[in-house]
């Protein structure tokens, strides 16, 4: 299923998601409101996206952008779902109940970005040690152990 067929399929099944759909670099992208993320994810799973490939986040400086990669074995198609949360809130609904694969992925995002996932069954650090202070992939992360690279290298 190519990108146009995917758009038509999405618009016919879920018209309210249709205006949120766009194409970036040849991939379908669905930018949803953070409060509606779980509903949209549920709809997309019902549409046929049965595989959660990846959950990650981007620190844009002002806010965090959650990125979910969904794939469908049946449709041979993939789609990105993006949701933005404010930096001081840094919280979004978990999709662990829809795709169990989200469990560790969301723990990783929590570990490195400090974004809490509401409804996650076991939200604790996964990559760093349990006594780690801070979330290293945030732009404002401070750590005295980091040696900054000098300009001449």
């Amino acid at each position: 299923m190519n990108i146009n067929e995917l758009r038509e399929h999405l618009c016919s099944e879920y018209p309210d998601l249709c205006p949120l759909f766009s194409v970036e670099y040849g991939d379908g992208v669905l930018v949803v409101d953070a409060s509606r993320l779980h509903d949209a994810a549920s709809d997309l799973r019902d549409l046929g996206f049965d595989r959660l490939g990846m959950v990650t986040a981007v620190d844009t400086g002002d806010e965090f952008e959650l990125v979910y990669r969904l794939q469908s074995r049946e449709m041979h198609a993939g789609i990105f779902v993006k949701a933005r949360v404010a930096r001081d809130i840094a919280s979004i609904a978990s999709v662990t109940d829809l795709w169990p694969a989200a469990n560790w992925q969301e723990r990783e995002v929590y570990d490195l970005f400090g974004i809490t996932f509401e409804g996650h069954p076991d939200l604790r650090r996964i990559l760093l040690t349990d006594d780690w202070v801070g979330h290293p992939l945030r732009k404002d992360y401070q750590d005295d152990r980091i040696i900054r690279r000098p300009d001449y290298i």
Partner: protein
Amino acid sequence: MAFVDDLGAALDKTPGGGIILTSLDAVMDWSRGKSLWMMPMGTACCAMELIAASFSRFDFDRHGSIPRPDPRHCDVMVVAGTITRKMAPAVQRLYDQMPDPKWVIAMGNCAVSGGIFYYDTYSVVRGVDEFLPVDVYIAGCPPRPESLQDAILRLREQVSTDSIAPGKSRALKSDLPAPGSPRKGEPSTPGGDAG
């Protein structure tokens, strides 16, 4: 170890015991140096070279260096790869489980100094010598198995200086060129060590 240490100390004090001590040292160092079993602490890409070293092309069995999966069997820990802050306690624990006498080879730039992860990294230990006593360092990213072979031979030299009497050591005799010694064919300089 306690018995060997006591024996060495007693021989060292006994008049004329030095003759027996040096002979015993020679036997002990020969047997230790030629069976340096490796604890393959492979955490990253250097482990591929470490694996290649034990296969038939390089065949480290002929040096007596056999990789063993259990730290209690091993004499030398080869730290091959990046050690993260989360991994460091596990490496320390495995090192503590190895019986004395034990040695450490830091293989590759990451284990030597952190390598490419030296700057701008929050998670990597800058060199395994931050928490382990390293005997031989190998540079390279990753080093070839020949470098590891050189490290094993260097370590064997170092082992050959050990004495079973506590606090004693023997003179280093080596066929390998030491740093500063002239290369083959070069005239020896007055300050250099002619070898």
